């Protein structure tokens, strides 16, 4: 299948773009928690002499902004940063990843993550102000 098939959580060798990018993220309750839009790489001793390792998943428009580039990319990154106390895009530590299959399964709830900042802002700032928004669906 295009995009590769990652069925083994313990798979030893992968191509990061092929096997991790664009994967769906699922929280501990089976709820969708975004997609893998980029990966954070960390150099263990702060220099390039030792190879970096994947330390976190980056998700959301802020993570995609550098790939969009130009003014639009900068605007998206700045707008999303304003929606959170945390600078930069939403970040999910790889330490909360339980399994990598066709999706990426976490051991935490999406409520404990920062991945829904745009969704939360739209709900609280726009949707909730529409007359009738507080009525339960009929």
């Amino acid at each position, binding site marked *: 299948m295009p995009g*590769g*098939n990652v069925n083994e959580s313990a798979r030893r*060798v*992968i*191509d990061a*773009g092929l096997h991790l990018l664009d994967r769906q993220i699922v929280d501990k309750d089976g709820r969708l928690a975004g997609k893998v839009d980029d990966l954070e*790489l960390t150099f263990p001793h702060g220099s390039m002499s030792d190879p*970096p*390792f994947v330390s976190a998943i980056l998700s959301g428009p802020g993570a995609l902004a550098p*790939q969009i580039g130009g003014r639009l990319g900068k605007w998206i990154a700045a707008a999303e940063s304003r929606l959170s106390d945390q600078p930069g895009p939403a970040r999910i530590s790889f330490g909360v990843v339980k399994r990598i299959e066709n999706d990426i399964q976490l051991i935490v709830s999406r409520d404990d993550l920062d991945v829904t900042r745009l969704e939360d802002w739209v709900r609280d700032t726009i949707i909730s102000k529409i007359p009738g928004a507080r009525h339960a669906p009929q």
Partner: protein
Amino acid sequence: MRLSELFGCEVLDSDGRWVGEVHDARMVRDGPEQGAFGPAYRMQGLIVGGGSWGSRLGYDRGEVKGPWPLKKLFQWLHGHAKFVDWAVVAGLQKGVIRVSVPADQLPSVPTLRQ
């Protein structure tokens, strides 16, 4: 650093010759321990080649299943891709990666194995 910062970077060999662009990053799971996940994925090296069209679909790498004409086409298109082990990466600056060996000493991309 972000993974996306590496994609599309130009790679130059020890003589300053153009090798290709970064298409992907091969990772091996023997990095530092990371909570529930265990050993982290550590960078083993970069997959470098000419045009990147079709590379993200993975048809150019042996294990990905798909219609054989497409596989053959992409394997031919990416047949000259090189593997740049991280140990030979000498520098990274402004979208250019310099390696410490001549291009003809860079191996082909190893087949993905478990």
